[in-house]
């Protein structure tokens, strides 16, 4: 058995009102930011699966993404592998990360 870690992204579907995104957009002028638009706020779930092989692990995650983490009527999801070595508990391996301190 091997451990695989994945991230599931769940975002409001196109056309579905996203009040959080709208609230964020409206607050940006207070931060003196005017160059940002189309803000959408969703969820990110990270989890580890034990399986014999990656496809099997992924299948489990995809099932969870569709059945537990999202409502298909209003949300879309995507599954991505997380490179454990790079950032075991950080949000993601790629990109610039910070703990803000």
């Amino acid at each position, binding site marked *: 058995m091997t451990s695989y870690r994945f991230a599931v992204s769940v975002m*409001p*579907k*196109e*056309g*579905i*009102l*996203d*009040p959080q995104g*709208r*609230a964020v957009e*409206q607050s940006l002028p207070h931060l003196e930011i005017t160059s940002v638009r189309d803000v959408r706020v969703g969820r990110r779930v990270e989890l580890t699966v034990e399986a014999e092989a990656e496809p099997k692990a992924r299948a489990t995650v995809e099932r969870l993404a569709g059945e537990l983490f999202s*409502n298909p*009527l*209003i949300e879309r999801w995507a599954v991505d592998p997380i490179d454990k070595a790079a950032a075991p508990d950080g949000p993601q391996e790629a990109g610039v990360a910070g703990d803000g301190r």
Partner: protein
Amino acid sequence: MTAVREAPTVPAAASGGPGAPGLHRSLGLTDGELEAIRDRLGRDPNELELAMFSVMWSEHCSYKSSKTLLRELPTTGEGVLAGPGENAGAVSIGDGLAVVFKLESHNHPSAVEPYQGAATGVGGILRDVFTMGARPICVLDALKFGDPAEPRTRHLVRDVVRGIGGYGNCIGIPTVGGELVFDASYRDNPLVNVMAAGLVEERRLVHARADRPGDLVVLYGSATGRDGIGGASVLASASFGEGETSKRPSVQVGDPFMGKLILEVSLELVERGLVEGLQDLGAGGITCATSEAADRAGTGISLDLDAVPRRELGMAAFEVMISESQERMLAIVSPDRLAEVEDVCGRWAVPVAVIGRVTADGEIRVISGGIETDGSPAPGGRIVARIPAAALASEAIVYRRLASPPPRRRAAPAPGAPVVPSDSLPERGTDPGAVLLALLASPNLGSRAWLTTQYDATVGADTVEASEGGAAVLRVHGMRKGLVLATDACASIAARDPWLGTATAVAECARNVAVTGARPLGVTNCLNFGDPEAPEAFWQLSEAVRGLGDACRALGLPVTGGNVSLYNESPSGRIAPTAQIGVVGLLEDVDRRVGPAFRAEGDVVGLLGEATPGLAGSRYAELAGSAPEDGPPPIDLAREAALLRLLPLCADAGLLSSAQDVSGGGLAVALAECAIWGSLGARVELGVGAAPAVELFGESPGRVLVTANPSRWGRLQQIAAEHDVPLGRLGTVGGDRLRIVLVGQGATGAAEDRGAGVADEIDRPVADLRRAWELALPSALGEEEG
């Protein structure tokens, strides 16, 4: 104007031409309805017009199946300032103030997306209240689900409750009461009914009318997106090619933050006298709001389609016209007030746009390319839809549906037919104390704390009692007065006899208000029924409306508004006929209110009213099964009316220490609840007939459990006698156990059956009763902790 008249139909290019053959059917209109539309227009409708008709002639907006029934309801009475036909009812409470209230359903949206469905349900009913100019003061929610043991039900319960709280808590209106009922018939069709009440100065009451030609039609709140266009999305596929419909979201998402903003904006507009009329946008969106506001006043509205702020690019005219995007309001504004209206909206950062003009010609005209101040198209503008407002609203099609009772009814006994002593009523041979514990631990009777703790019930600092007891009590801010609210339905009785079930629900709801000492002022209701085209379902509906009318007339209560939700069916069946009733009452002095909890050792326990036979439809029967030949208990509406008069007098005279309506689980459960809430026991003697379950657990209406200081008992007897209400002395409050000793004919039967040595009485520590009652809901939902 002449140009308009010369354009009887809309150019094909505007909207894809006259509806393709059969298009009306995919929009949910029948061939007959298409004919009726042609009749009213004197021509073929184009696609946009067809879409507008399809939403306005839907059951939801037109009440086409229920209208003829609802006409029979008593809707007038002392103090009624607004009745059915307005966004919500309004009744005077004196001192120049009015209470505004209404009940509404959000069943189908909640079945699909429970969180958002419930949340937008709260948003919608609150809008109905503040559209009248009233500041909402509270919300009550009446929820019905299937078996709580099923995972799907648990998910629905959890998300619906989160949704109600998510909206109500955020917008800051306390959720103070409601109902939670489990019954197998709601398995695939849960009911989410929400009631709200608000307060307004009578002189500021706003009506949803567009009276004055030349006034501006102003839209404020959220931008218009493609929300809730569901069925009409066939038009999108017709216009944009197949395959895209799956992308059309029909789920509406609520934004309580915007809800709060438009609430504050609306009240400020009303307060400052800046609007001539207000109408919220709900089902049918802009089409419904404009046609109803115009039709009520006999005017018309010209709409500037391009002026409607949109959330998405490329929206078709029909999408803009029928979108159900939440948190939008329509105001009718005199042109010289526009700047101030824009200013108020600006301060709350609420988008606002002038989207049309009130006209004198009685037509709803949708114009693309801009409009002139008289409502005609600007140069280059085109009329893309043109329909008499009345054809969309008051003159929409109406049906007289076929009603026929179910065949089995003929075999059923008359309501209240006496139970034969020799029947196999299951309490014979069972320990009544165990039955009481089982009832308290059942999901329909246990404590609602699991749910009520998820609702903010105290925001606003006016909540005197959130209603664990049966009715909620709120102080009228800055006054001694109190408002009392309750909501009830008796679907398990209505399933056997819809007239009786509905009348019983009205009586129970009013009684719940009156036990606090309040005088009931009016009734609102939400009729949740099946497919009106099925004769049996329509019979249920018509019987229920008859029961509603009869009960309200007998109790002297006006029906001030309500809502009808039909087609509550699924492949697994039709829901139990559910007439959800809401009653609002007035306490002249909130300090004189009577609570349900036992108050003092030594108080006399008494029962107003008498038990009558009939266990069918009771919680006891649900638990134990009832005899097949048994019927539900009958109702004595004259007795109910007497109670409603008597109880406020008793409260005013300070005669009562506590009062509690006898309903679910019967007298035994009522005693247990009063003991639990008061952390005080009692010892009572109960006379029982041949079937002790009738007195112990039967739910016959017209009864109130009271306690009084012994010094006041004589006066209480006197005043009850004056009102011709029997008052029996049962025992005394005290100790930490609830002891119910049975006397009379049926008292020994059970003990005999079980053999000697078993006491035929209930004797349990209040702490045990409390534990059973508190664990009921968490364990039914699989959430017990620790």
